[in-house]
């Protein structure tokens, strides 16, 4: 019990004194996950919108698959991206293994299903009169899709925040693709995993608190935007 309490105290000390090692890892975590979320959203929202407003056979099946992939195991994504970017893989020449860029790719792949799926749900929630009105007002296909995304922006933002949460909190793909190299690919989750196994509980707790705070801040920001 004492160990935990002293861990907490040390953790608070590390955070309050802005320990350089802790800050560096936190910033890297945020940057990598933010990048993958933004790239993911840029890919997923247009795809989600197109799927929602196109009619084709197998649409329901496709949406089911996408929803199943919400629970995609992070280590599977790690394995898949590893095969893709390791030396022998098709993208091996880009030398992305054990780089932050490689981690961004892995996290993007990981959260794409959630982003696409929740975009579809958000757009499906729109009133049909809204859709009719857009068509009636003479929107082109592109104008139509842009308008519906704009109308569903808060629901889509919530999806993006959820995606960010999954990206920043996952450890499997980060460790397989990033390799947890100090000062290069070490992020909050991989660091917690390592420090805990080495018995540095205080550092782990500090990093854990930071991880939670990031999630909290992001959600508060979203709430502020949605209530505006």
């Amino acid at each position, binding site marked *: 019990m004492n160990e935990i309490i002293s861990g907490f105290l040390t953790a608070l000390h590390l955070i309050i004194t802005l320990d350089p090692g802790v800050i560096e890892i936190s910033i890297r975590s945020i940057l990598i996950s933010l990048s993958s979320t933004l790239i993911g959203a840029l890919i997923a929202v247009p795809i989600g919108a197109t799927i929602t407003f196109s009619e084709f056979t197998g649409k329901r099946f496709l949406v089911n698959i996408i929803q199943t992939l919400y629970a995609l195991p992070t280590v599977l994504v790690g394995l898949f991206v590893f095969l893709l970017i390791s030396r022998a893989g098709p993208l091996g020449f880009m030398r992305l293994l054990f780089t932050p860029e490689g981690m961004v790719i892995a996290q993007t792949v990981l959260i794409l299903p959630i982003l696409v799926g929740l975009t579809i749900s958000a757009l499906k929630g729109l009133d049909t*009169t*809204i859709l009719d009105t*857009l068509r*009636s*007002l*003479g*929107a*082109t296909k592109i104008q139509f899709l842009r*308008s519906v995304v704009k109308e569903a922006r808060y629901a889509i933002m919530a999806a993006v925040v959820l995606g960010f949460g999954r990206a920043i909190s996952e450890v499997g793909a980060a460790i397989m693709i990033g390799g947890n190299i100090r000062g290069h690919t070490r992020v909050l989750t991989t660091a917690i995993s390592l420090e805990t196994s080495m018995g540095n509980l205080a550092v782990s707790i500090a990093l854990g608190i930071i991880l939670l705070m990031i999630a909290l801040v992001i959600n508060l920001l979203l709430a502020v935007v949605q209530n505006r």
Partner: protein
Amino acid sequence: MLEIHNLSKQFGDSEVLKGVSLKVPKGEIFTIIGPSGAGKSTLLRLINLLDTPTEGTILLDGTDIHKEKNMAVRRRMGMVFQKPAIFNQSVYENVALGLRFRQIDERVIRKKVADALAIVGLTGFEERKAKTLSGGEMQRIALARVLVTDPDVLLLDEPTANLDPVSVRVIEELVQRIHHEFQTTIIMSTHDMFQGQRLAHRIGVMIDGKFAQFGTPREIFTTPNDRFVARFVGIENVIEGRIISKDRGIAFIQVGRITIQALSPLPVGTDVTIFFRPEDVAISCSSSHAESVRNVFPGQIVSITPMGPYNRIIVDCGVKIIAMITYMATEDLGLKEGSDVCVSFKATAPHILAAEE
């Protein structure tokens, strides 16, 4: 300018429109009245290119709109829906939407939005959040949004169905004003027959996927083509009989044990249906009447139902005749269920049709 030929629309197994034909000249206010589910909305949606017809054509100034399906044709029309679609943005952005799609210069947009808001009586609402407005105001926003695009054809799908009576008046006045100022061709559906009467140059009564009758409001409300139209426009007295004799244009029609006198060119021996409005029937306690009132029948009151300032009174005179009189008159005459009274109506009140086979 708008011509519809033999238009049909099928959704799955149900045929919602069954070969509708219609011509609406430029500048006309044409109102489609009919019960819910008759196909009014479907017709408007087909005109607005929101659905594709199963059969038939719609020509706008000679162009088959479903064949062309181009943006230029669509952008000549504007539609307001029963439920106002309001976007989660400012009033300004809501009204500007159609102009944004047309890539109009922002200065022009600002001017047009201000003008349209002035017409619908919402000047100064630009920066308000549209979602916070009342239902009536939202519907006015929807009208303004269509107005800024200067449509040649304005389609209104039961625009007042969800509104309170005051908002209904406001929207109706707006429709008249828009027509007056821009001579827009307006095609409007409503299940409120009186709204059709107030606004329309011409009415089409749609029943079960077809137009049962076209005519001016007066024609529709006094000379229905059949009993469905009669029922829908509030002609509650529909009585079957046979012409047994004629005297200078007046037909004597045997109905059970009474004889109703009415103007009709039909020959003796014809089986007919007699239509007349409850509002044209008077109730009194004596049988002495002016000579012009040819139909006077004693009877007994079966029921009295209040309807706003009126009472709907059913009197059994051998046949049941429905009268609509003010509640004041009801009280003055001391009418109750079971009272013995006389019903009377002029020979010019009924509309006579040869009975349908």
